[in-house]
């Protein structure tokens, strides 16, 4: 698998803003100049952020479809509750950007522990998705805190050894649900 990279984000070539972005890394200037430039800046900014938003939604749909395509996740009943896997995040209809990022980080950790080949791609997708969320958060001037490794996942190895199938199926199923929640939430312009 390809090693992880730094978090350097290159702006889209086709839609990079030509001016400083308010709330991002804007060099502080006089307030009146900022207010005067605001309509223009917001127009310029709208293009890349819209692309980021579109890419975020498309990527979420892609991951959801990928999970659908994994054959053994299709036959799992959603009615049956599986216990002992509380470290896998459940569904939260109302999600902020930071909560989304935190949730995805946990899933990324879990997927990275799964030996199945087809989850590697999903894990990569999650990394891209988290980068997109960071970009969206930055556009709203709400930097996301760095997510730390969760203590609850320390027992993951033990659970995996005993219940690999359950863990994979439940993790993918809950991830799918969480992603669908996020997709709905993104339309509602989530908060920080």
């Amino acid at each position, binding site marked *: *698998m*390809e*090693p992880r*990279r*730094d*978090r*350097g*984000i*290159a*702006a*889209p*070539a086709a839609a*990079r803003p030509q001016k400083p972005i308010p709330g991002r890394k804007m060099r502080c200037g006089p307030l009146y100049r900022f207010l005067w430039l605001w309509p223009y800046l917001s127009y310029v900014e709208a293009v890349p952020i819209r692309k980021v938003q579109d*890419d975020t939604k*498309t*990527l979420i*749909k*892609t991951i959801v*479809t*990928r999970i659908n*395509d994994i054959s053994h996740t299709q036959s799992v009943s959603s009615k049956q509750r599986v216990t002992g896997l509380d470290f896998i995040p459940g569904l939260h209809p109302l999600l902020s950007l930071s909560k989304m990022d935190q949730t995805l980080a946990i899933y990324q950790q879990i997927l990275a522990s799964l030996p199945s080949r087809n989850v*590697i*791609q999903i894990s*990569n*997708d999650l*990394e*891209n998705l988290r*980068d*997109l969320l960071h*970009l969206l958060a930055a556009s709203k001037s709400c930097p996301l805190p760095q997510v730390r490794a969760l203590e609850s996942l320390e027992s993951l190895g033990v659970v995996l050894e005993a219940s690999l199938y359950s863990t994979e199926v439940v993790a993918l199923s809950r991830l799918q649900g969480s992603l669908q929640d996020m997709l709905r939430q993104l339309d509602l312009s989530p908060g920080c």
Partner: protein
Amino acid sequence: MFQARCSSLKMICQKFCVALLHWEFIYVTTAFNLAYPITPWKFKLSCMPSNTTYDFLFPPGISKNTSNLNGRYEAVVETKLNSSGNYLSNLSSRITFHCCFWSEEDKNCSVYADDIEGKAFVTTVNSLVFQQTGAHWNIQCWMKEDLKLFICYIESLFKNPFKNYDLTVHLLYVLLDLLEESPLLPEKGSFQIVQCNCSFNECCECHVPVPTAKLNNTLLMYLKITSGGVIFHSPPMSAQPINVVKPDPPLGLHMEITDTGSLKISWSSPTLVPFQLQYQVKYSENSTKNMKKADEIVTATSLLVDSVLPGSSYDVQVRSKRLDGLGIWSDWSTLLTFTTQDVIYFPPKILTAAGSNISFHCIYKNEKKIVSSKKIVWWLNLAEKIPQSQYDVVDDHISKVTFPNLNATKPRGKFTYDAVYCCNEQECHHRYAELYVIDVNINISCETDGYLTKMTCRWSPSAIQSLAGSNLQLRYHRSSLYCSDVPSIHPVSEPKDCHLQRDGFYECIFQPIFLLSGYTMWIRINHTLGSLDSPPVCVIPDSVVKPLPPSSVKAEITVKIGLLKISWEKPVFPENNLQFQIRYGLSGKQVQWKMFEVYDAKLKSASLPVPDLCAVYTVQVRCKRLDGLGYWSNWSTPAHTVVVDVKVPIRGPEFWRIISEDTTKKERNVTLLWKPLMKNDSLCSVRRYVVKHHTSHNGTWLEDVGNHTKLTFLWTEQAHSVMVLAINSIGASSANFNLTLSRSISKVNIVQSLSAYPLNSSCVILSWMLSPSDYNLMYFILEWKILNEDSEIKWLRIPSSVKKYYVHDDEKHQHDADLYVIVPIIISSSILLLGTLSVLHQRMKKLFWEDVPNPKNCSWAQGLNFQKRTDIL
């Protein structure tokens, strides 16, 4: 007092010898701190019989009863005499040998004895004493640079009287733990023994493995040398392996002239040593100007020597040693001699990319004299003189030429470089500098598969294949999201494995991928002359997706609507909106495709008008992202329409009547003949024909003819109307021809003569003469067939105004004129018509009358299967 001590020493020695005879060489009570420290890594071992007198050689002022001379050296006992051998023949059967270590730096040699109480007693003598009569060995001990093996090398000295005997050497050693380093030697049993490898020339090498964790421990050891039947035991010696590391000599010694005209001496360490090294470089310069010797210590693996001169020679050797702590210099590397030529180019070769600027420098020596740089001129390939505007004078002897904005080198035969010559006005030395200019514009194109899990990148090395000895490597750097405006080569990059394909392209696969990350890629051309990078490109896998083709593609001609309907399912990926392209055409070997594009991502079907509703169409669909990014998918698997009845027949068949009159019986039989409906009219098949009769007396009735195209009935009434209906699975034809038979109709004979002339193998021209008459002619009917062939009679309708007509048969290529039989049939004027042929539907009527055959083309009636008949009218 001195003598008393001496006799006491002798007595102690003798007692000690006896003890050893009993205990068989047990070194159990010797003080550890008396072991000979191997700090001079080269030292000597000398042994001599105990009866040798050396008392008088004690240097003045040295204590003779010192039990420990600071632990610097000690002496030990040796014994067990074999009476064989010349040297020993005069010795008694049991003689004690005293052995000691000494070195060139410290020639004092101490002998050791033990008193009755076991106290060590050490006496120091000059080693010259032993050199007179004893046995002698050179010893070298060191730790290998891999820090795994301790080696002691033992060599018999030339003067050694035992030299001609078989030599067997054992090394007994113990690695003391750091905590165990007590003043006492360990028990005999704790010593391990290794047999040393001895060669014929009386050299032995002993190997002691040292665990990495014990490099700082003390290695205590002694030698047991058997030669000429005598066993010699060395005094104990000690060393800390980490302090006696001796690296292997440096390898790959190399000299070259740098781009700046210096002599660069470089080398490499033999292996990856786990510690830093320092190097000693010994070199000498021998030129016409001077002789120079130098000796420098450096920590880098290269050394620059300024002002290299043409026509000189340089001798160089290098050795290495641990940079920190104690250590031993390695052996010198093999001597390397480098001779500079009379003309020095620096750099001698340049590999560069097209479009770049480079410079060469040169020093020219002509007959022991260096040419002034102002007199130097430069030539390229001995063909063109380089303009002086490109020269620079660096100093009195160095000239420089610069090539701006270089073009790629065009190979000339096997020469893939440009030869750059530095000349002394009109005289050029045969040596030249080589200039390799490579066009590094390598296009890298990438494609992400339809499952969005794999990105395949392809590139062709054809542009740089001419550079022999080069290898190409795709390198990349991934940024977390998107690409920058101007891709640049990142200092941190990774190589990617690429595989050569049959088409000459390299293919590199990224799997899994980061869909929205920017992969900046470039090709690195590695060559001994340097490396070049192609211009980097940045690719986002999401932007180069080639989707899977649409699935479940179906095609049908819609019933009653009569359109070609194509439906499909979009592929699972990508989730972006897609556009679709449909291509369709009549099925056949070479389909003439027509295209239709669908830009509505939500559409899953399209209905298209097609000219022929009763033909088999082949349809394929492909897709691409609606925003234009990526590639078109492959075409889907073809779908084919099935010919079914789409609508009721457009019209009934056109028909003619033949009236046969039996004058004796005064009956008239009417035979109706009609052309079978073509698919375009029947839409698309005819199940049966039905003749609809109407008379004033009997009213209307239907007569089913089946698939026949002829019907004969008895004409009894004054007026009899008939209509031929075509019926398919949908229903009966809606527009039909109507014929009313009337008693007042008669036969028309108006064609007076008919001539036929063949124009070529497939065309015949017809002309005819008409008799004068008052008929108002509507049209002629022409019946013809090809003789001697099993072809059917064909009918043509010809306008009444036409006087000549071309009968064209595209299917035949070689016919004689007489093969054609032309039967002109003249249909009378409207007054004389047997019936009135009318088209009920106004639209169809128009179609009918406009469908007059063009005499210059094949008639519309060709190919129709009329029932063969012998007479008309």
